[in-house]
């Protein structure tokens, strides 16, 4: 009886271990293991600010309206009195052949991983190539003084497929304005602005 139970257990154990694998030619690759570190580098980082910034904000950024430091984006504080909303989010995608997976990390004020023009990120250890890096950069929230809307922030979006993990750093920023309009927190579009519905631009 003991031998029988032992045999059944052994078979079950082997079957269960096999169910954990799934690495055979033509099947789906395994999930990526993100247990290494690497750097996302911005080539010639130039984050240009849009027009319509408040005087308070304009006094905190370079005179040519181009930011060349990721650290400054996170460290420049607004005048709202709230905790900083500045953020840099990075998403890495693997090549999908050796392993499948993505990793998204958000960095806030004080993140030691963020350098002047580079960010230390998790890196996949079981893939041959990293295929794409996507970055979203957002300033803190500032009190709006140009046009309607109570507050604004500036956003930049970048992506790169450089095999060395680099992203072209010359990116234009967009001012996103919002506020409490008639009791609802709403996004505010400019006087000549529009939104898109069913493929058509709607001018309000």
């Amino acid at each position, binding site marked *: 009886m003991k031998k029988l139970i032992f045999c059944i257990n052994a078979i079950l154990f082997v079957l269960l271990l096999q169910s954990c694998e799934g690495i055979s030619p033509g*099947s789906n690759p395994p999930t990526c293991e993100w247990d290494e570190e690497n750097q996302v580098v911005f080539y010639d980082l130039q984050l240009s600010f849009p027009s319509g910034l408040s005087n308070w904000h304009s006094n905190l950024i370079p005179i040519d309206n181009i930011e060349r430091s990721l650290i400054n984006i996170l460290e420049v504080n607004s005048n709202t009195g709230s905790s900083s909303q500045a953020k840099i989010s990075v998403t890495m995608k693997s090549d999908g052949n050796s392993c499948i997976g993505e990793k998204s990390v958000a960095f806030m004020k004080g993140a030691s991983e963020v350098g002047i023009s580079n960010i230390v990120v998790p890196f996949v250890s079981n893939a041959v190539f990293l*295929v794409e890096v996507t970055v979203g950069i957002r300033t803190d929230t500032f009190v709006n003084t140009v046009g309607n809307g109570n507050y604004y922030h500036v956003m930049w979006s970048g992506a790169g497929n450089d095999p060395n993990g680099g992203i072209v750093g010359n990116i234009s920023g967009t001012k996103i304005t919002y506020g409490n309009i008639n009791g609802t927190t709403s996004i505010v*579009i400019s006087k000549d602005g529009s939104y898109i*519905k069913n493929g058509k631009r709607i001018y309000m």
Partner: protein
Amino acid sequence: MKKTNYRLHYIVLMIVGLLLSCNNEERLETTTIQESSIELKSSYNLLDITPNVYHDYFKQTEHSVGFSSLKASSLSEHSVVERINIKDEKKEARLSINNKDIDNFVMSRIISKSNSSDIYGKTVRFKIGKKSNSEKNTVTSSETEVEMYVPELVEITNPKIESEDDLFPICYYEDFVLEWNADPDNEEGLVVIAEYFGNNAIPQNSNNEHILNTDVIDVDDGHIVLNNDLFKDIPNLSIVHLVLLRGNVTIQEIEGELYKFFAESHVRLPVILVKDLNTIAKE
């Protein structure tokens, strides 16, 4: 008898433990690396699971050869990368693409616009063979040729972005019309993705989620009304990347080993996604 029961309980516990450890689903827990950096919780949603060539891209093969192109925004140029990963321990493999010999079998490099014009919108010829023993530069009769049509580089034409002022267009999610440069020779359709990185136009409404919803466009005729479910679980006024991708994939067994030949191009379009029109106000 009591001793046997204990053993059985132990065995059952062990089996349950092993089953749980074999869960291959995406881990959904959020891990805090530091207070100032947070790993986002990822979730994926495939709206169409009908087999197609794009699923073949994620099949594991011993070798792969192909091209991938990214247009980071509507105002950027396409950046084309050639990726080759051929295991050739015996140093006897021979590879050519459009009759041009390739020397480096493990590489990933950006190629020029002129070189990529021989790939996209063309039928590409991949040849795999072995160098003969007597003369390393000649090819044996075991050479295999794979021909594959690679669709034109994809471009989004609506929503149209013509200047920096048009970046981050505000788009209503229902019956979202997407238009692109059609390629009538592409028989494989396209893939459309809505990717959310946790950012919201109202910063306080941002969260630590990464959502990737994917659908397939069957016909490459340049126009589609997107399935509303493409934006499922993505909050109102989120910053969403619309990704449009098309390409081709061929998996071929050559001398008992699988080779993947692929070429794709995709474009990213960041938008502000509106689900409630009452949350748009005019200046």
